[in-house]
């Protein structure tokens, strides 16, 4: 399947606030459904509801993943670790710890891992500690042929940054005694060296990319993704895109999005973790409502094909619709 890779760049620190129900907590990544609603908001600002509904029905997209542009302009894109078990014969506990820490694979390393799937035992016959094949740096795994990038990976990754906030009493002009002082956690993508540029990217499949999505992306980077956008969190300066071929034939799928199975697809789950998705709905009206909370499969889950996933209405009331994204996009393999 032909997809677009959309890369989001910021001239300053990439700082996001994917809320986790509390100000002092963040999610560890921006999930596809959050990205979807940010895109829908941008679309609705530019077009009418017809365009939005067509988009919501047709678009398939991934969550936001980290990428790194090296000094010579080469991009390394990372994918989340598949949830299924890996075979490691290593008995050295320290080395096994190192293996377990890996949570992101370069595309090449990911393809290598996927090619080692043992369908009988439902696991990856793949030893990440084999230095002839893989090169590890903290939470990242590369192929050994990509080793020259290892240096650039030092200091690269997500960190949580904590910002103290003060709520000032308008009467006394000092912090409120109760609740006047609190911490806000943000998710920050950093890089250890000045010559490399960290960015976030996602994959999207949508026929009307140039015509509809491109203008929405122009607006999206300025509007932001995730929480606390009015403090500049989740805002970018520019985006780039290129085409990519995503394998779509096979018996299995490694998910790149938070997905919700259709009723008849629930028997196709092999290895998965769940993430609770909840939050508020603001509908231009005066009051905010809680969305219906719902569990979705996490990125990296392995399912049997066919598996399309579905969007779901999470409106707490009958008088309007709130679409929560749950379609499956991923890497197909056998």
């Amino acid at each position, binding site marked *: 399947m032909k997809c677009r890779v959309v890369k989001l760049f910021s001239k300053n*620190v990439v700082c996001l606030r994917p809320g986790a129900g509390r100000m002092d907590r963040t999610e560890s990544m921006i999930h596809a459904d959050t990205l979807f609603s940010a895109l829908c908001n941008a679309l609705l600002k530019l077009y009418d509801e017809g365009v939005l509904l067509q988009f919501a029905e047709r678009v398939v997209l991934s969550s936001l993943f980290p990428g790194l542009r090296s000094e010579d302009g080469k991009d390394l894109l990372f994918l989340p670790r598949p949830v299924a078990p890996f075979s490691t014969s290593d008995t050295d506990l320290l080395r096994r710890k190192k293996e377990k820490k890996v949570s992101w694979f370069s595309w090449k390393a990911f393809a290598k891992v996927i090619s080692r799937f043992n369908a009988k035992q439902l696991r990856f016959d793949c030893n990440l500690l084999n230095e002839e094949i893989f090169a590890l740096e903290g939470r990242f795994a590369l192929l050994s042929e990509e080793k020259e990038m290892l240096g650039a990976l030092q200091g690269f990754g997500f960190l949580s940054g904590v910002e103290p906030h003060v709520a000032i009493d*308008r009467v006394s*002009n000092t912090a409120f005694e109760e609740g006047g*002082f609190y911490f806000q956690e943000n998710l920050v993508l950093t890089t250890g060296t000045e010559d490399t540029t960290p960015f976030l990217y996602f994959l999207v499949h949508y026929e009307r990319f140039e015509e509809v999505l491109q203008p929405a992306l122009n*607006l999206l980077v*300025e509007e932001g993704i995730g929480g606390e956008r009015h403090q500049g969190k989740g805002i970018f300066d520019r985006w780039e895109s290129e085409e990519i071929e995503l394998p779509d034939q096979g018996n299995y799928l490694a998910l790149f999005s938070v997905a919700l199975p259709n009723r008849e697809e629930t028997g196709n789950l092999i290895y998965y973790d769940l993430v609770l998705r909840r939050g508020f709905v603001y509908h231009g009206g005066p*009051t905010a409502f809680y969305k219906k909370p719902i569990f979705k499969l996490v990125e990296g889950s392995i399912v049997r094909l066919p598996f399309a996933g579905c969007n779901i209405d999470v409106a707490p009331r009958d008088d309007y619709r709130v679409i929560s994204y749950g379609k499956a996009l991923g890497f197909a393999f056998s």
Partner: protein
Amino acid sequence: MNRFLGKLFIYFEIEALTGLRIGGARDSAEIGGLDNPVIKTVDGKPYIPASSLKGKIRCLLDRKDGVRVARREGDPCGCGQCEVCRLFGAHSDKNKTLTRLCFRDAFLNFEKYRESLKDSKLLDDEIPLTEEKMENIIDRLKGTAQHPRPMERVPAGAVFDGEVVVNFYEGDDVKKLIRKFWEGLRLLVDDYLGGSGTRGYGKVTFRNLAFSWKTRKDYQTKNQAHWFSDIPFSNFEDADHKLDELCEKVSQALYGAGEH
């Protein structure tokens, strides 16, 4: 829901005219004796969080204009009608309004900061990004200093790059909203940013201001911004004198496009 019309972008440098202290400690509640670091990015450089600028400007406007409706005494305005509520969002569950202002964190402009220190002949790796100052509390009876504590602050001369975006929707009085925001900037220049303002910290000014805007149509076509002036306004007062002209131009661009 009202249609989105477009955005006004305001770029500026914030220069600290006195030491600036946006800290992790509870300044205003005067819990002393603690470590008093200033807020820094994950790579250790001081910055001005968007929320500090946004919060301070709103607070100054709320105090000047008066709070009409508040959830509890001392809260920001929640009326949903006044210009402050329209710009910053009503602080209320009942009168929720769109937040039109979007601030960005202001990061240290190291080049400009170095320039301000050019007479001191320091090398790059010697240029201090922060300084420590001892603060005392004077015992009113004995007249002696007590509880000396180090306070970290960003030295005078530090320059930060800032950006604010104002979103406009159909029905907005564009000129009124821009003027109200500008009034907030003016109040800030006359007040202080961060902690210990009453002790002379946090006097700031805006320099090298530039303005651009984009209409809804611009996003759908070339995504190009329209600039108000090719050359930035080197100081706040010069930009101040051009404000009426800016308001007129932005309002015309947003409403005069005559699309659809």
